[in-house]
């Protein structure tokens, strides 16, 4: 039988959850009723692509796509579209609004990210086409290990994973350490909330990191390397494994690379969910198959690292810079950035900013340039409040430092740090006490539990912050927090504990008034902390649509259709759903 029209209905679970079966029944009914059953065929298909707006149907031959249907709509469509030949405009699928993305800034400079998103990471020849492995060839053919390290010294490259230790010095220490067996490790345990630069490099340009590690191995005298990548990055691991295999196939890993007296191979080790494994001694514990608990230093990994052997450990971005430095020269690299912080840095911009994502800029660019020129400004034109850098060990930098150059020294001066490159923008709707509380919760949760200040101290700090956010802050809390923060910083074993108080210290330094408002005035200026806010309905604006009452999870809203609704503050759990669903913005926070 040949049909004049086909109706495809999505049998996608989401569509069914939202009533696709009823819509389908209504379609059948209408087709029968209108005597169209010989002309129109109804087919259920798995999905039509917009299940988030289901129930959805597509009518062929014209391919009109209808979404968000009710049974009534279905009947109406059959009548209008199939009987009268008039597509129902109001029910058709509309493309998402076009992309409101501000154009990219000319200020970005891509070194590490040069190939990312441009080459096929699973095709080594794509990388070779971009001068890949030229640096390794040059190093093995023309340079002594000392010359390699000298070139790095000229470049001024510093560790991109945290404190910014000079890379050439780290390599020198490992090179000079006595030992027959030495290792190089790539730290790909990118755990800072909001940071995903390393993931992008591993997924987009894995060979640059492999090449960097091979050069490091040559420089320090190692023949075995380990990639430690967090298990949260399965695609990165897959890409990396494929890349390692290709490099082996091309003889770029293995025995006598480039015919030189240099052999090097790599193994990938996957983490299993522990932030602290980003700390180098914990990471090595994890590679050895143990709990990722940091150990005291000295001795440093350069002299006693993996299995007690001299080990060089850098992060993904640091290694990815190395081939470029060798290829284009240390002074080329040093021409970018500032006096003490050379080169570029990748950042993951997230939070309340227009153009979120991955960027790379020369070190020393100001926060303002990054937020406004590269990031396109604060989301929705709101007021900038702070930027959080350095992850949970970093700090919040307030508006007054918008013109601060972003480099290792300046970030430290204002109580934050470079970290691995997280850059979370916060606007006026962000409560800084809540943010501090959040970070403390994070470090508290990720503390390995070995040393007392971190294990117990962060717990005590979190309890106080929880109280403050719940509206139960007491005089003296701020002082206790400050005291705890200083001692935890001075007394903890590893960087996680030493840095854990930073978000609290920096918010106390710059946003003390918010803490005071919470404790003494029992208000949350950003209207976030739910112990300190109340949801209300503006009777002038309320249209009595009942939507808030229907969506309230605890039935705290009273009101009849077309009448003003009222929220019972005693029942209300301040979840904010009413505010989100209100079509006329009648719900407000006090």
């Amino acid at each position: 039988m040949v049909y004049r029209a086909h109706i495809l209905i999505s049998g996608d679970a989401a569509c069914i959850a939202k009533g696709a079966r009823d819509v389908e029944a209504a379609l059948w009914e209408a087709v029968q009723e209108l005597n169209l059953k010989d002309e129109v065929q109804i087919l259920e298909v798995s999905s039509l692509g917009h299940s988030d707006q289901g129930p959805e149907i597509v009518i062929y031959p014209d391919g009109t796509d209808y979404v968000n249907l009710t049974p009534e709509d279905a009947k109406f469509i059959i009548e209008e579209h199939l009987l009268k030949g008039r597509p129902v405009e109001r029910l058709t699928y509309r493309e998402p609004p076009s992309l409101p993305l501000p154009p990219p800034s000319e200020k970005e400079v891509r070194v590490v990210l040069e190939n990312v998103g441009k080459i096929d990471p699973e095709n080594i020849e794509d990388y070779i086409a971009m001068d890949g492995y030229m640096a390794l060839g040059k190093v093995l053919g023309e340079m002594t290990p000392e010359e390699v390290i000298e070139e790095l010294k000229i470049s001024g490259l510093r560790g991109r994973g945290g404190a910014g230790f000079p890379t050439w010095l780290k390599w020198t220490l490992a090179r000079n350490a006595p030992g027959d067996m030495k290792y190089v490790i790539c730290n790909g345990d990118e755990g800072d909330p909001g940071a995903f630069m390393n993931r992008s490099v591993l997924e987009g340009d894995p060979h640059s990191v492999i090449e960097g590690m091979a050069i490091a191995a040559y420089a320090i005298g190692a023949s075995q390397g380990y990639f430690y990548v967090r298990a949260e990055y399965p695609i990165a691991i897959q890409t990396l494994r494929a890349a390692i295999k290709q490099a082996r196939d091309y003889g770029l890993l293995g025995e006598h690379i480039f015919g030189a007296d240099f052999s090097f191979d790599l193994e990938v080790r996957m983490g299993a969910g522990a932030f602290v494994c980003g700390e180098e001694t914990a990471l090595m514990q994890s590679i050895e198959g143990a709990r990722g608990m940091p150990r005291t230093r000295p001795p440093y990994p350069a002299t006693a690292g993996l299995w007690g052997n001299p080990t060089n450990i850098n992060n993904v971005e640091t290694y990815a810079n190395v081939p470029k430095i060798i290829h284009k020269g240390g002074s080329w690299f040093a021409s970018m950035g500032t006096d003490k912080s050379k080169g570029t840095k990748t950042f993951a911009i997230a939070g309340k900013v227009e153009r979120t994502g991955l960027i790379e800029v020369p070190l020393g660019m100001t926060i303002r340039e990054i937020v406004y020129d590269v990031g396109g400004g604060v989301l929705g034109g709101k007021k900038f409040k702070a930027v959080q850098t350095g992850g949970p060990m970093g700090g919040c930098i307030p508006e007054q430092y918008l013109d601060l150059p972003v480099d290792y020294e300046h970030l430290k001066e204002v109580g934050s740090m470079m970290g691995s490159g997280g850059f979370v923008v916060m606007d006026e709707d962000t409560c800084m006490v809540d943010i501090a509380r959040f970070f403390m919760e994070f470090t508290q949760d990720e503390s390995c539990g070995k040393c007392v200040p971190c294990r117990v101290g962060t717990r005590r700090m979190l309890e106080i912050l929880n109280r403050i956010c719940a509206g139960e802050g007491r005089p003296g809390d701020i002082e206790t927090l400050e005291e705890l923060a200083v001692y935890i910083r001075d007394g903890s074993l590893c960087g996680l504990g030493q840095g854990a108080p930073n978000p609290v210290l920096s918010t106390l330094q710059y946003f003390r008034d918010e803490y005071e408002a919470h404790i003494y005035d029992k208000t949350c200026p950003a209207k976030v902390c739910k112990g300190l806010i109340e949801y209300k309905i503006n009777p002038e604006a309320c249209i009595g649509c009942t939507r808030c009452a229907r969506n309230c999870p605890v039935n705290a809203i009273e009101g009849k259709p077309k009448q003003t609704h009222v929220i019972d503050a005693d029942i209300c759990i301040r979840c904010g759903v009413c505010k989100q669903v209100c079509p006329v913005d009648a719900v407000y926070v006090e």
Partner: protein
Amino acid sequence: MSEIHLTINGKPVVAQSGQTILEAAKQADIDIPVLCHHPALANWGACRMCLVEVKGMRGLQTSCTCPATEGMEVETETEKVVAVRKFVLELLFSERNHYCMYCQMSGDCELQDLAYRYGLDHWTYPRPFEKMEVDASRKYFIMDPNRCILCSRCIRACSEIAANHTLGLRDRGARTMVVADLDVPFGESTCVECGTCLQVCPTGALIDAKSAYGGREKDVIHTQTTCMQCSVGCDLDVVTRYQRLLRVDGVWESEPSGGLLCVDGRFKPLYEKRQRVTGPLVRKDGKLVAAGWNEALGIVAEKLQSGSCQGLAYCATTDEALTAFARLFAKVDGAAGRIEPQVAPLGFGQVAKVQDVLDADVIIVTGAQPLEYQRVIGYFIHRAADQGAQVAVITDDENGLSARAAMTLTSAEAGKAVETAAGAGKVVVVYGTEIKPEVIAALKPLGDEAYILALDPARNAQGATAAGLQPQEPSDVDVLYFLLGEQSEDAALLAKVNGAFKIVQAAYHSPLVDQADVVLPTPIWVERTGHVTNLDGSAKPLHAALLMPENVRDEAEALAALADMIG
């Protein structure tokens, strides 16, 4: 190792390279407080009590891990350091239940001591801890996580000293707990009850069940003596209070065990249930009745001179007693010997000391069950295996060491052990009385390079050998004299006892004691003074920690009195 010079608190200190700041300070009598550090254990660096300031180094350093270097300038009690230590203590007191009044270890607690030292006089932080279940599933000791400070000493002791690896951690951060095996109750775990964890615990988290809550630590007396439960002869620190035995600890830095004890040495004697012989007994009208020493010894002296006699000793007594025993029988022309079998020399190799096991590269065990009878040596073998030693067990039966040995061989395959040992550095053969002749023959190619450790089953075997007592069977004599000491006879011996007049010198009642015609009491280990000679051949001193019961006399003294009576 070379000498290095540093200053600590302005005082010039000489140390060896490789030493930590803590070790250097200790040598110079500068006290740095510690909690997670223990000299017998690997460094951990977690508690932060031992933090010091080192000129030129960023932040504070843990002196227990930081190597001392030439020219270093260390300050151990600066304002900053003291503040952090106090802070750490305040946090620890806020973490779990540390209400000292209700803790067994109050007065003997390192955490409490430090709290006094640093002047903690109130709770600084709230203490929202939850009560955790106490694990009392082990007979001899209790684990109370509420008192635990997570220093991990117990875990390290279990792994590094006992090489048993029962203890570990679960979870992380504030949820961290010390657990056994796969988080099972202690009593169901692989724990061998050596009690080393207990001995290293700085607080009241691991406590001895016997002595718990029996009084205050300030009233206890510590007595150093030697364990008499087997031939290893470990040093003991016996703790008593008001003439009551409380507990037994090992002695760090002592030979041969270095502080390690086993369940037989540490706990079992505390649970002795046998009925004590509290005074001399003589048989009258078919019944054993109490008698005075003079009467009892008089009968014995008379009997020994009236007919043929034989003396048989379990070597569970002092060197002095064994010597006196041998001397007495020489005097009365009687035979004297030991009851337990003796290990015969192999005819090759050099004599090993117990600690030779620890740095062996290959250990061959045969004809012995050290995990059952000389447990500390069994643990030493495990420890050596953890360090990479190859362990070969040659046995035709079950042997507990097989589980973790590199190879278990039958007697016929003994040659393979020799192959393994070929070219290896230090080879130690550990053997006992069950060794088979063909195994001896197979091991012979090891030659005199090999170290030989003979595990004699008798408690004071070396003492017996020195006294000239060789294994003997009870023979057909008029008078049989048994020196049992604390050891009750086994059924085999009992079966061999004939109708002779029987004199038994023993600490506890047993069937043989009950058959005896004369019974002489002996002291038990904790009441003894004198010496025992251990496997290594050292005569180790015994010091009485408890007084003997009024009517008990030491064997050596009683035997000497007998000899005098005989004249």
